[in-house]
């Protein structure tokens, strides 16, 4: 038996032992490949209509209501049928921020700028799902407060 052959086998064994010890954190979790995982339940969309706070000033506000079946395409924009400047008086919905009427050169347009047209690129609904990982985000106010307290 030549040396190369033996080394290959040894290496292969090492790798397989290592793989077996480390549990692979895939989407399917710990369940073996021969079994099917139970999918998590579909979370419920929050529909409270109550504004949520923002974690930082530039954060796009989250949507506090359901948007099932809202059509946003070339033909129509269901979001803007309440949130556009012309519609807010009747709908009493908050108007989309004025920045959405600006093009990239800072010129104000009559309508929502095409680059801001697809609301869901930034604004999303929230569900009652539990976070998969802990969130360590700290508000700027908390950081400043810590700073002051430390001094």
């Amino acid at each position, binding site marked *: 038996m030549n040396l190369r052959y033996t080394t290959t086998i040894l290496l292969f064994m090492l790798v397989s032992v290592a793989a077996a010890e480390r549990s692979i954190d895939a989407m399917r979790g710990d369940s073996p490949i021969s079994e099917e995982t139970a999918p998590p339940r579909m979370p419920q969309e929050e529909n*409270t209509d109550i504004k949520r706070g923002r974690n930082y000033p530039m954060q796009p506000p989250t949507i506090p*209501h359901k948007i099932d*079946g809202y*059509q946003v395409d070339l*033909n*129509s924009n269901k979001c803007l049928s309440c949130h556009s400047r012309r519609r807010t008086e009747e709908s009493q919905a908050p108007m989309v921020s004025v920045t959405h009427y600006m093009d990239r050169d800072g010129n104000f347009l009559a309508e929502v700028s095409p680059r801001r047209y697809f609301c869901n690129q930034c604004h999303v609904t929230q569900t009652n799902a539990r976070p998969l990982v802990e969130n360590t985000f700290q508000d700027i106010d908390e950081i400043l407060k810590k700073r002051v307290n430390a001094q």
Partner: protein
Amino acid sequence: MKRWLLDWWRTLSTPSKYFSPGFLTVGGFIAGVIFWGAFNTALEATNTEVFCISCHEMHNNVYQELKPTIHYTNRSGVRATCPDCHVPHEWTDKIARKMQASKEVWGWVFGTINTREKFLDKRIELAKREWLRLKTNDSLECRNCHDFQFMDFTRQSPRAERDHATILASGEKTCIDCHKGIAHKLPDMADVKGW
């Protein structure tokens, strides 16, 4: 023409030569029942979703759009089929709508919307016709199921509650004014009021 009409009148106004009055009345009654039954069966057959989507125009366009909406699939499994929303339930109105629909047969024969492109080009016209119909009859087909009297506002979202309790309750607006495009995709809404 006049002679022909007069001949017919004479035939109809002279007493029957061979048939007894009993045969004529009872036979006429039975024939009437059969005719009416057949007519109604045929009418109801055209009032099913299976009939509607037997044409590819309906099956490939509007039916596919209906499928992901809440009027097709939902938690309780109650669903609306095409005629529930597009054909009045009252008999006289239904017959009126069916007569209008004969124009749709014409459109089917001559392929007015037999391609996706033709359908999309015509969608605004078709949609406006349905919106106008629902606006005129105060969203009757919606109200066949969604009865305002039995709406529990406390189970609605605050936005829905506010609008239903004010502008819907006062009759200022009707269902279709706000709920456009809930079962099918919308055409270009640029010149539609409220969009």
